[in-house]
């Protein structure tokens, strides 16, 4: 029997009720979340605490004058809003994907017509909608402040908007973390908290208490900084949602393609915008490079064989095949993508006279781009020697652990801190080795880019580069062999052969 797939119902039968206009996943998540005892309890507790604190603040401060009461109310209001929007609501996403994975309900979701993107997006929008509900619920407390002082409504709305957006980005981060193995679900929030603490968590909340929302006066959405901030938050949200999608997407779906296309567009845009070296150009280019590096890094941590369904086209002209090759999931394709992305970057860096002081320095800048490629792909090569199951179990975080380890050693070599720990001789030896080895050579090279590289280092680094390329070729033979088979025949075993 070759019965056709069940057809979709006619459009007229599809939107009869209000939830019919909303995505199915969002409807389910909202129904589930708003009925959950956790949410109802949180909502009631929040109002109880807010009423008590407001009443207590008014009681204590009425005697000292309206101005003091207003400042205190303002502080309490913003602290409550910060805690709810930046801490409580995003953290509700920490169990979101994990519960689906552990209860095996994810299999049932994946088997529906919902794509992995729709599943994650539905969960994220539901979290943001709940945060928005809290924001609306807290509004009456904001109005109370009006009776004790002058409220700057526009500034308050901008602040609340930024907090909501920040919370939305954090919700995306939490969704990603929720799909990771348990160890990382513990480590990452702790690291996040510590880094937040290091940039002044206490001063953030004390600033909130002084009535400035914790962030000072933030730019409006129509200013240049506002647009940049919106863009940055939007991009970060997109990246983390993309990472969450990868945690649950079936192997047949190719999510590398869209992410890499986005990365290439962003890199090209930032490189063009930063041409000429005006103030802030380096930051723009650095941002573009970081995003592309992150997109490549995500795939560099993934060890899988290509499937026929991953490529939109396998045959055709050489340039089309080449383009298809850099858009496949799996680290060998990501190595190629990183190389392709760095070619225009190296050209722009080398050609832009504002970035160097002569031909020698221009070449050094271009060479630095090559070292950056080496730094990006070397951990992936190391991980390829481990069994794929172990790297998959680590949830793709193994790459970042290796990169972090190398970064720390590079820092020690660069700052000569190894000398304090193990003596000058050791520090000199470490520095000499690090000048040549991949990853380290890039970080140390960023110091000497203005003066140019020494010939000795370049020879050593070239040898290391040759060895690296050779090993990558050896480790990715099966991968490219499978690709070549698809390209030759246009058909083949989609699962590949071990």
């Amino acid at each position, binding site marked *: *029997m*070759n*019965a056709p*797939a*069940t057809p*979709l*119902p006619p459009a007229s*039968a*599809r*939107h*009869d*009720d209000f*939830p*019919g206009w909303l995505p*199915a*996943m969002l*409807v*389910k998540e909202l*129904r*589930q*979340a708003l*009925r*959950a*005892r956790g949410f109802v309890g949180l909502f009631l507790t929040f109002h109880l605490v807010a009423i008590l604190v407001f009443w207590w603040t008014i009681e204590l401060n009425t005697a000292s004058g309206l101005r003091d009461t207003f400042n205190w109310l303002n502080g309490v209001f913003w602290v409550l809003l910060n805690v709810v929007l930046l801490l409580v609501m995003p953290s509700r996403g920490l169990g979101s994907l994990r519960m689906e994975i*552990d*209860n*095996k*309900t994810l*299999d*049932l*979701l*994946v*088997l*529906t*017509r*919902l794509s992995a993107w729709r599943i994650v997006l539905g969960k994220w929008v539901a979290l943001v909608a709940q945060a928005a509900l809290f924001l609306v619920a807290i509004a009456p407390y904001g109005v109370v402040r009006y009776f004790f002082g002058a409220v700057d409504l526009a500034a308050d709305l901008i602040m609340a908007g930024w907090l909501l957006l920040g919370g939305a980005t954090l919700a995306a981060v939490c969704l990603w973390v929720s799909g990771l193995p348990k160890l990382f679900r513990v480590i990452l929030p702790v690291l996040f908290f510590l880094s937040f603490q290091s940039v002044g968590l206490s001063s953030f909340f004390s600033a909130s208490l002084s009535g400035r929302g914790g962030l000072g006066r933030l730019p409006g959405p129509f200013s240049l900084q506002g647009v940049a901030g919106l863009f940055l938050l939007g991009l970060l949200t997109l990246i983390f949602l993309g990472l969450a999608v990868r945690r649950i997407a*079936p*192997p*047949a779906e190719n999510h590398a393609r869209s992410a890499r296309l986005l990365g290439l567009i962003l890199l090209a845009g930032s490189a063009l915008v930063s041409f000429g070296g005006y103030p802030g150009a380096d930051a723009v280019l650095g941002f573009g490079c970081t995003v592309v590096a992150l997109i490549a890094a995500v795939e560099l941590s993934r060890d899988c064989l290509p*499937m*026929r*369904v991953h490529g939109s086209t396998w045959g055709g002209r050489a340039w089309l095949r080449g383009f298809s090759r850099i858009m496949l999931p799996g680290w060998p394709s990501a190595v190629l993508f990183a190389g392709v992305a760095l070619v225009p970057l190296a050209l722009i860096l080398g050609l832009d006279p504002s970035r160097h002081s002569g031909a020698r320095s221009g070449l050094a800048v271009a060479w630095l781009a090559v070292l950056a490629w080496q730094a990006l792909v070397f951990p992936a090569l190391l991980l390829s020697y481990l*069994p794929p*199951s172990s790297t998959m179990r680590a949830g793709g975080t193994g790459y970042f652990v290796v990169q972090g380890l190398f970064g720390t050693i590079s820092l020690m070599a660069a700052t000569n801190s190894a000398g304090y720990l193990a003596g000058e001789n050791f520090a000199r030896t470490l520095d000499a080795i690090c000048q040549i080895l991949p990853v380290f050579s890039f970080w140390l090279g960023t110091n000497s880019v203005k003066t140019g590289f020494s010939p000795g280092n370049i020879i050593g680094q070239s040898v290391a580069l040759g060895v690296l390329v050779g090993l990558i070729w050896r480790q990715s033979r099966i991968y490219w062999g499978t690709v070549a088979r698809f390209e030759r025949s246009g058909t083949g*075993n*989609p*699962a*590949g*052969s*071990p």
Partner: protein
Amino acid sequence: MSAPFLEVNELVRWYGKVRAVDGVSFTLGAGQVVGLIGANGAGKTTTMRILATLDTADSGTVRLGGLDVAEHPGQVRRRIGWMPDHFSPYQDVTVGDYLDFFGRTCGWRGAELARRTAEVVDFTELGPLADRLMDKLSKGQTQRLCLARTLLGDPDLLILDEPAAGLDPKARLEFKNLVRLLRGQGKTLLISSHILSELGEMCDTLVFMDGGRVVHHGDTESLQRHDSGDGGATFDITVHGPPSVLLAWLAVRPGWKLLEERRDGVRATCRMADPAAIAAELRRLTADGVPVIEFRRAGRRLEDAFINILREGRDAAATKSAEPAPGQQPEPPLTP
């Protein structure tokens, strides 16, 4: 002959160093009810997960209605319904909301959604439970809900992994009836279970798996009727009084083999299976003074068939591995 509806060809799946599925091949016609039988770790669930597009094979292909499941997972998913062995209900979601959600994911909305949901609720008799929270359902009710969800998309192929596991006898009976109804509707079903007698009642065809391989693939009826490789038949013989006389007769009578001894008789196989020979054996039995009160031809239990097939398969594999390679001297027999 029309092309098979489901075609599994040389499927291999490794988990680390373990070959969980080792060259599994079988085909299924449309409208068939097929039982997948095997011990824990035989590779049933892995095979089913690959068929359901939830896992990918290291090599081999699966085609459903001509579509490769690895290449076209989206199209294949529209045609299959998957019921996992372990189903955890959502918290804070009612039965009605759960079905409503999965109906929406199938693309149904409004009146069409209501009609479809009502149909499956009616079929699985979940109507009175529509407003109950999922996590407050009994195991049997939860399984019925899971089946209702599976049916919402009106799939051509239903893959049910251990659907009767953990059900009480009443729920098991209800479930069996539902399978019978689905079979009547012309659905193709692939069911895995440990309870072989139930599978025998529900399935047209049985696929036995052992160590990641298919060791038998055939229709249920012939498996139950046909006793052993030598064409014999199985009989339940009941006698008046203790079966000692019967046991003595069986011990000396050529062609008979004792399978099981009971308080009032035995189960035994006879090498002769044609009716005339059986009639002659019965006459001989009574003539030799065995007080027979019942002599009945028994169908072979699936458990016995399963164990025999596994044993034969393992013996054959052992013999094959023990055979010396060409040019190699056989090992001398062990001496005490």
